[in-house]
């Protein structure tokens, strides 16, 4: 059988695990939004005071915060920022002036009040706004239009626009441990941590969560996404909470972490991109942001400490990779990456795409055959141990272990920030290695990888930047040579798969010429300048080596370079 088509799609419809939206934890959170925001504020204030125990330290921190916020307002303003931002912070600053010089007796309440003002403002900004009606509406709209587009584009017959021959399920392949994910979501609280390549990820993953029958997750979505109106609407209706990467001050970060921590403790399934931002280089994330990740560990420890009777609700971390042939923003991302590489400077977040670009992209996406696959990884406990379908943590020998023990010192559960920082680091390493294991390689990734590495090998003396400066006309790979290399690397990829170190799409196993053809046709399919093409002689050329480098990066980290 020719395997170039994806294996008969097993994607089926899953029954929701919780039928009524009122049962969803995320709904409960937003129904009691006010109380929840207060809870977060209270706890965050307590935490900040623990970290800045003296009056002097607290005032210094508040001064630094006000200074940075005013700077942010001056330098990097966004549409979503509240109108009174500038007034609010100048008021804070005025109240802070000279506070440290004053008598602590008479002013002791002032800094507490200021802290509360700030934290409560942040908590309100961060908190999500899930509305069941708007969620249902969005869901139906998305489904309806996606389906129309899909059918209109694929079945080229009059009236096909209103047929239901194709659904999103044909377009987006969900593979991996779906059943386990569903089981774990019933048993405990799921923290989903996907790779992040494109702004489309958020919507895609929202659809995936719905389609496998899970209740809406709370999202840690970049505040910048809320600049784009259409996204803001989607995000709000999906239960997103807002993460503002411009704000690096301690009160903000602690409030954000507390929000995530408390929501997880309340049983809200939660999702964030632990890479923090879209992968600029196209590499699978190697370094994760530890802040939000640490809240999963802390929430688990809190649950162990606070649950006096019955079973303790467990938290499960589920890594997910999103696999694309094409990333809309690739040319900009890689440009950012190359500019910054080696230079450790601040990277302003810019979004060049408005609502129209997005719709145009959506249309392209549906009219051309570019499938997406989403790999759901196996569940982990907060220490990165695999769990079984019942949620038991297992050691490498398959013995059941009690996660509680990791927090025990001298016979009882203790708070130890340094220990948990270390656990967070370990968890992040586990997630990264899990990403590499479940990463699903497409023909297009391999085609890009092989071509770029061959060019690199042909110019051994050039560093990356000099290589990228070569005129594209000078780059041509003999097809037979390319084919042989492709075959050789593909074989190594099979071996890696057998060793459980990577996954690949079934289409990769077809006849080599056809797989290469498929790969070349699909890599970066909608870019104006195509990263890979065949010329009239049948040889391999590129119109954009930089973007090719981006797609090639997807396969870096498996040590496949040595087989080029």
């Amino acid at each position, binding site marked *: 059988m020719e395997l170039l088509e994806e294996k008969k799609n097993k994607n089926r419809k899953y029954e929701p695990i919780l039928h009524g939206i009122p049962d969803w934890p995320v709904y409960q959170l937003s129904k009691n939004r006010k109380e929840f925001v207060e809870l977060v504020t209270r706890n965050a204030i307590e935490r900040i005071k623990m970290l800045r125990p003296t009056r002097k330290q607290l005032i210094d921190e508040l001064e630094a915060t006000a200074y940075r916020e005013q700077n942010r307002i001056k330098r990097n303003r966004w549409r979503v920022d509240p109108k009174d931002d500038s007034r609010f912070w100048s008021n804070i600053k005025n109240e802070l002036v000279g506070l440290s010089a004053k008598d602590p007796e008479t002013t002791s309440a002032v800094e507490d009040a200021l802290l509360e003002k700030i934290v409560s403002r942040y908590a309100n900004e961060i908190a999500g706004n899930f509305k069941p009606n708007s969620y249902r509406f969005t869901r139906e709209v998305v489904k309806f239009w996606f389906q129309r587009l899909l059918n209109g584009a694929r079945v080229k017959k009059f009236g096909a626009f209103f047929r239901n021959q194709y659904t999103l399920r044909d377009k987006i392949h969900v593979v991996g441990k779906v059943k386990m994910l569903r089981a774990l979501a019933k048993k405990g609280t799921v923290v989903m941590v996907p790779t992040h390549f494109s702004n489309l990820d958020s919507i895609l993953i929202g659809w995936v969560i719905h389609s496998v029958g899970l209740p809406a997750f709370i999202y840690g979505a970049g505040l910048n996404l809320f600049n784009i109106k259409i996204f803001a609407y989607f995000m709000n209706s999906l239960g997103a909470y807002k993460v503002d990467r411009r704000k690096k001050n301690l009160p903000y970060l602690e409030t954000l972490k507390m929000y995530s921590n408390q929501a997880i403790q309340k049983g809200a399934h939660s999702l964030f991109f632990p890479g923090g931002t879209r992968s600029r280089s196209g590499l699978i994330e190697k370094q994760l942001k530890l802040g939000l990740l640490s809240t999963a560990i802390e929430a688990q420890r809190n649950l162990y400490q606070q649950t006096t009777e019955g079973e303790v609700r467990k938290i499960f971390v589920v890594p997910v990779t999103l696999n694309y042939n094409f990333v809309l923003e690739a040319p900009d991302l890689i440009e950012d990456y190359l500019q910054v590489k080696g230079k450790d400077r601040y990277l302003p977040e810019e979004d060049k795409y408005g609502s129209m670009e997005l719709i145009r992209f959506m249309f392209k996406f549906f009219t051309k055959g570019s499938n997406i696959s989403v790999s759901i990884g196996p569940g982990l406990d907060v*220490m990165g*141990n695999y769990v079984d379908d019942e949620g038991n943590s297992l*050691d*490498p*020998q398959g*013995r059941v*272990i*009690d*996660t*509680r*023990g*990791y927090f*025990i*010192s*001298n*016979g*009882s559960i203790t708070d*130890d920030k*340094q*220990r948990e920082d*270390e*656990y967070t680091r*370990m968890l992040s390493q586990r997630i990264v290695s899990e990403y590499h294991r479940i990463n699903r390689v497409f023909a297009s990734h391999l085609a890009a990888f092989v071509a770029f590495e061959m060019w690199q090998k042909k110019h051994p003396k050039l560093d990356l930047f000099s290589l990228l400066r070569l005129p594209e006309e000078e780059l041509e790979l003999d097809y037979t040579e390319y084919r042989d290399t492709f075959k050789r690397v593909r074989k190594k990829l099979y071996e890696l798969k057998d060793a459980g170190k990577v996954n690949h799409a079934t289409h990769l196993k077809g006849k080599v010429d056809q797989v290469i053809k498929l790969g070349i046709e699909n890599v970066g399919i909608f870019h104006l300048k195509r990263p890979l093409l065949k010329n009239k002689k049948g040889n391999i050329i590129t119109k954009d080596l930089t973007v090719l480098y981006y797609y090639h990066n997807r396969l870096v980290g498996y040590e496949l370079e040595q087989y080029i």
Partner: protein
Amino acid sequence: MSSTSEKPVGVIGAGNFGTVIANILAINRKVFLYTRDEQTAARIKSENQNKGYALHPNVEPTHDLQQVATQCDVLFPMVPSSHFREMMRQLSPYLQPYHILIHGTKGFDITLPDGQSLENITRLTRQQVKTMSEVIQEESVVVRVGCLAGPNLAKELAQRQPGATVVASHFNEVIQLGKRLLRNDRFQVYENNDIVGVEIAGVLKNIIAIASGALSGLGYGENAKGLLISRGAVEMVYLGRALGGDLKAFLGVAGIGDLVTTCNSPMSRNFTVGYRLAKGEKLPDILADMTEVAEGVNTVRIAKKCADHYKVRALITDRLYKVLFEGMTVEEALEFLMRYPLNVDIDFI
């Protein structure tokens, strides 16, 4: 102290170092001293001494691994690196995530594909070469791991001569615990959070110890030794960094401290190997005379093959490898090193 903190601690392995450490720990706590063999445990118990060291009254010899693991939260594995993984496999079923392990073993663990041996494999990577803390984490659920390293000659410690050790761990909790348990008025404990660096330093110094023996065998004096130790330390830094250690570990008690001690210990097996090589004997003959393998001989093999893989300049290791396994004489090796043109003293700070 609360009653739970009075739980006994376990020492696994009743060699020289294990016995001495058990005695030091016994000042603060009740200690189980585990040995594999039932008779040995019985003998230690009846004689109330082991390897010539009288046992502290708080030390109880045992051969029941399960008992040690269930009664103690804190264990100190002190078995040779060649048996370490096997020991961990036996211990692992009894270990829980609340256990804390602080090991005192200096050596690498090597896992090779079938059909390959340390002799015939050409290159080694960190996939194959593991430190003991890594073995503990691979074989058990224990994550809070620490290690002990430093200039710790068992004999001198037993005589209560002044000495120090480093407790290294990623976890402050483990370091503080190690300090609390080990420290006394004759034994200072330093902290380091680069556990892998400290472990690697403790192994690599064995290479320089062989070289030190060789210089001594050629009859050279203190200038030569000073040269060797300083250049040896630099080489350890290069190698150690390639293997995942941090510079600081090599400059401290477990690095320079241990190195100086080892290079000045004519009784040590590594030193003896070097000494006799310089006298013109061949390696197989020297090893035939020894009851235990000098750890450094294997370390040279491993370090040389790692250096090749990670493209690290490690001249002393490389020459020693040639002397040990390729028939080069010690004089030739020394001549090569003395003529080598690259003379930057320190280029890594």
